[in-house]
């Protein structure tokens, strides 16, 4: 079905909480095309510097399983100028901290730092991320750490169940593969294969830099032109991950060490680029499963008392978003839980939600979003991620888009996408 991407007609605004419009970010471009996006938060105690790159696990070739995430670990092992651990020591000695995260689509590296040290931290971060040393000895040691990370996640049966859900629901797509990688593949990787991945993915047309915090008096553009970031070249090869196709299905899996059963379901929703549709999906999943008065929580936890918890999470992704449902219950009632999830969906299909329910969802989503804008780290994250993927809206825009959704439109355009017939359903039960 077709979903319009951006509304063209201006509808009247209903007042949103705390209705002062959010500030406009400043966007600049380096000569090689790398985007720099900044938002001044004069009240914040620290600056967040956030480097984003289109180098998540979905960009790995078959033999490269786990390499995107492994590289993220190796970056912190130093560059030619920075010995291993020196970056962390310097940042933390200034009262800051740093971290990184690898997703399916992208990876980002961020530093929180007092303003006086921001220019230096930026220089160090770019050196580290764009010119990592990838030394053989460090590589072997860090592989052990990654294998421990994998073992730790495999000891959490809930994580095993989710991984299995994605593997079965997305059999022909990178989203079905573990970000941490397959054990055998990890054991085969070499520093050379990592160098090739880094050189291929960390390119001028594939990264951006976001800053948020007390930025007054900080002019970074000149510094950046003459930095590893400013010297990056554009890509020579462009093969993007394919669109996500979700395979509907209905499986049962017995898992050792599970204490409660899990009903897991996955649906495919429009990709991140379809921002209007993503906002609609956010509203509908909130209406259905956030808070005691949401449809699924009220029915399954509060009234029928079949579940310990039920969640419906929207994962916004570039190849196609995923909505994941998790219900925690006793194994004996898992089929009833599944039937009730279907019934809730059918009821919504037959009788669109009340306007008050949609307004409740709007408030929850809007406040969640505004609460998320308090800290420099989350602001930089939001700006960096959207800039990386060419979405140059301001921070206010998602709040405005919500006003274009009402009950009728949610019923017509989003609810059909959550049809249980189109889901992949996995019942994980204790072995």
């Amino acid at each position, binding site marked *: 079905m077709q979903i319009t991407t951006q509304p063209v007609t201006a509808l009247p605004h209903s007042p949103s*909480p*705390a209705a002062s419009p959010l500030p406009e970010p400043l966007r600049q471009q380096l000569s090689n095309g790398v985007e720099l996006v900044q938002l001044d*938060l*004069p*009240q914040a*105690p*620290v600056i967040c510097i956030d480097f984003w790159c289109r180098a998540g696990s979905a960009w790995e070739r078959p033999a490269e399983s786990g390499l995107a995430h492994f590289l993220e670990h190796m970056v*912190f092992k130093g560059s030619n100028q920075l010995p*291993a*651990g020196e970056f*962390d*020591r310097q940042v*933390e*000695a*200034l*009262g*800051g*901290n*740093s971290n990184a995260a690898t997703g399916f689509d992208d990876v980002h590296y961020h530093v929180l730092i*007092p303003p006086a040290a921001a220019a230096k931290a930026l220089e160090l971060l770019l050196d580290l991320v764009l010119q990592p040393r990838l030394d053989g000895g460090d590589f072997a*040691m*860090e*592989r*052990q*750490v*990654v*294998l*421990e990370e994998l*073992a*730790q996640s495999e*000891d*959490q*049966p*809930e994580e095993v169940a989710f991984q299995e859900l994605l593997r079965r629901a997305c059999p022909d797509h990178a989203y079905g593969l573990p970000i941490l990688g397959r054990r055998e593949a990890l054991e085969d990787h070499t520093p050379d294969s990592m160098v090739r991945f880094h050189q291929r993915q960390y390119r001028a047309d594939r990264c951006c830099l976001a800053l948020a915090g*007390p930025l007054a008096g900080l002019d970074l553009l000149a510094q950046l032109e003459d930095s590893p970031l400013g010297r990056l070249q554009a890509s020579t090869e462009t093969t993007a991950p394919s669109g996500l196709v979700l395979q509907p299905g209905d499986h049962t899996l017995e898992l050792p*060490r599970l*204490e*409660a059963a899990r009903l897991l379901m996955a649906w495919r929703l429009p990709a991140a680029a379809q921002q209007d549709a993503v906002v609609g999906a956010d509203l509908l999943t909130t209406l259905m499963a*956030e*808070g*005691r*008065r*949401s449809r699924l929580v009220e029915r399954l*936890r509060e009234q029928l*008392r079949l579940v*310990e918890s039920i969640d419906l999470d929207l994962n916004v992704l570039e190849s196609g978003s995923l909505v994941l449902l998790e219900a*925690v219950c006793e194994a004996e009632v898992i089929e009833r839980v599944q039937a009730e999830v279907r019934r809730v969906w059918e009821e919504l299909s037959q009788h669109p939600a009340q306007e*008050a329910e949609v*307004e*409740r969802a709007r*408030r*929850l*989503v809007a*406040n969640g979003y*505004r*609460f998320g*804008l*308090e*800290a*420099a780290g989350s602001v930089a994250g939001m700006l960096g991620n959207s800039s990386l993927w060419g979405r140059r809206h301001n921070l206010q825009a998602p709040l405005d888009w919500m006003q274009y959704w009402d009950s009728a439109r949610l019923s017509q355009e989003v609810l059909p996408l959550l049809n249980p017939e189109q889901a992949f359903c996995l019942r994980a039960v204790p072995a």
Partner: protein
Amino acid sequence: MPLHPQVESRQLPGGCPLWLLHRPGPAILSAKLWLRGGSSGDRPGERGAAQLLAGVLSRGCGPHSGDALADLVEGLGAGLRCEAAEDGTLISLKCASEDAPQLLPLLRQLVQQPWLVDDQIALERQLNLQTLQRQKEDPFQLAHDKLRQQLYGDGPYGHDALGVEQELRTLDRAALERHASRLGSDGAVLVLAGQIPMDVEGLLEGAGQPVWTVAAPQRRQGPAGCTGERFTASGDETEQLVLMLGATTVPLGASQALALRLLHCHLGIGMSSRLFVALREEHGLAYDVGVHHPARLGDAPFVFHLSSSSERAEEATRELLNEWQRLLEVPISVAELELALAKFSGQEALGRQTCSQVADRHALVLGHGLDFDFADRCLEQAQALTPTDLQTAARSLLARPCLSLCGPARAITAAERVWQKHPLAG
């Protein structure tokens, strides 16, 4: 900006201290009502009562049924949580400032006029029982549960706030009413941070509501540790062995607490921390390694935790024990102390980024009966500490740690062998 927002200290009729921390920025309000007496106040035979009561509080109060309360809070997109920790029960409200007039009156209704309906108690109790059961999936939880037993036995800190299954099953309305009638009687404090509405006291007093008689939390010695078995293990068919090595120490604000906090920073904060570098970077033994040292009114735990592949159990145990032993034998260097100090003050700044963080930190300090500027004075006092002070604190508080393991039998055997020969086991 200054770390401190504009601060006002007031008092509600009846005695509850009210702190207003005005912050510029987004029009958000965070309120934290801290009530002394959490899971450590559970009576014998009623372990889990404080948490059960906290959960039931938001299922109806004052004029609002459970549904009406949820409609009001969720309808305004706000967040309301009631949770019991060891030393206190915390009620947290977060909302858009313009909605505060509708929501702030709830805070006192929750504690003064909870509905405590049988049906809702039954639901909340069942959810807590299910959560207790599900937590056993997590090997860290299993190792931690055992360690807590070793460190606190059946004492006030000896159980998970969720309770103990057999006792939780028996908790009914009568038990909760007893607890509810005492809410706040050991002291309470309310902290608001963000953009605070005019006439906030009027909103909190609530027309026609009885006066809430409570005092500020006083400084008082909390529960003590009582070291039992030095070694325990839970067998589990996991890939990794989870190790937790810990001791009971001192309350927040005690004379050696600051030295211990600096050791925590040195050992466990950030990627340059000692445990991270020694165990992860130099030996590749773990992904997750760190220190758990929460602030407590009584003898706080100080715990190293690590999980490592079971085939490396011997090496992991030896290295972890050696790191602990090192604290007793070798003073940290001056450079290490400086780094720990930088992290200590950095943590303070990073922990004050949002209204909720600011309100939370102050509610904790005030709830412990400490002064409002306690954290700032700690930052000053920490400057005077020396490596010898830290070592002295380690020697007096960390000399006899307990070890708790969770993992496959073979790994446990290998780890136990290392433990038995180690000086720390003596």
